[in-house]
């Protein structure tokens, strides 16, 4: 199955782009009022959340300081899950926090994996960021 392994980094980069953009669109909803806006977006905490979503999402999508952005976004999603969803039950499917758990773990994986080959990090800082490629 090594033939499939050759392509996991490009697929990772595409996933990072799509997932990052979807994450950022939640920030767009809160900060920019896109998609009809969101209730209670005037609150301080929601505003902070919105900026993390918007800026962090785009940084992850384009792979700019990926590990830093993914670390903050992942932690933020963990907080969101335990503050908002966890009190409503045990199963994420019941608490409607499945997406929060998903983002939390995928971003945590990104902290460790790094930006991958198709990223601004790989363009800007040639050494040290692109570890997984050399390992394949």
């Amino acid at each position, binding site marked *: *199955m*090594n033939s*499939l*392994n050759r*392509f*996991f980094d490009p*697929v*990772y980069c*595409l*996933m990072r782009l*799509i*997932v990052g953009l*979807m994450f950022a*669109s*939640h920030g767009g*909803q809160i900060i920019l009022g896109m*998609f009809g806006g969101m209730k209670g977006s005037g609150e301080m905490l929601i505003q902070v959340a919105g900026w993390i979503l918007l800026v962090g999402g785009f940084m992850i999508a384009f792979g700019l300081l990926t*590990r830093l952005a993914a670390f903050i976004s992942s932690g933020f999603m963990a907080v969101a899950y335990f503050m908002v969803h966890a009190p409503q039950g045990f*199963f*994420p*499917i*019941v608490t409607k926090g*499945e*997406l929060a*758990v*998903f*983002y939390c*773990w*995928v971003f*945590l*994986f990104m*902290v*460790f*994996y*790094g930006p991958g080959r198709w990223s601004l990090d790989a363009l800007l800082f040639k050494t*040290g*960021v692109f*570890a*997984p490629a050399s*390992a*394949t």
Partner: protein
Amino acid sequence: MNSLSRFADPVFCIGRLLIGLMYACHGGQKILGFPPGGHGMPPGALGAIGAWIELVGGFMIALGFLTRLGAFFAAGEMMVAYFMVHAKGGFFPLVNHGELAVANCWFFLFVLFYGSGRWSLDALLFKKSSAPSAGAG
């Protein structure tokens, strides 16, 4: 930052476990009525196939048993679900409520290419063929 990359594979395995289990919950709600709060079995043969892919595929991905096969079917099912159900609701996944389908689809596609990782039944059972991605960690 290579010191972080060393742990990419273990984190991948834990993420695969949790996301696979959450995915299996959707099949469980449809077939077993557990976890609570589901809407029962969807109508038609396609719905039944989807439910079984979610339940069985989810556990295969979670435990890392024939991971690539399970991820292939799961990613395919999520793509069908997105384009059949959600895509007509608008362009943005946030608007058409297909965000989870897109997210799962891409993650499982990554699993298909990455492999099972080091903490998996595949790595236990078939030492040779599933190990390569573990070597990447």
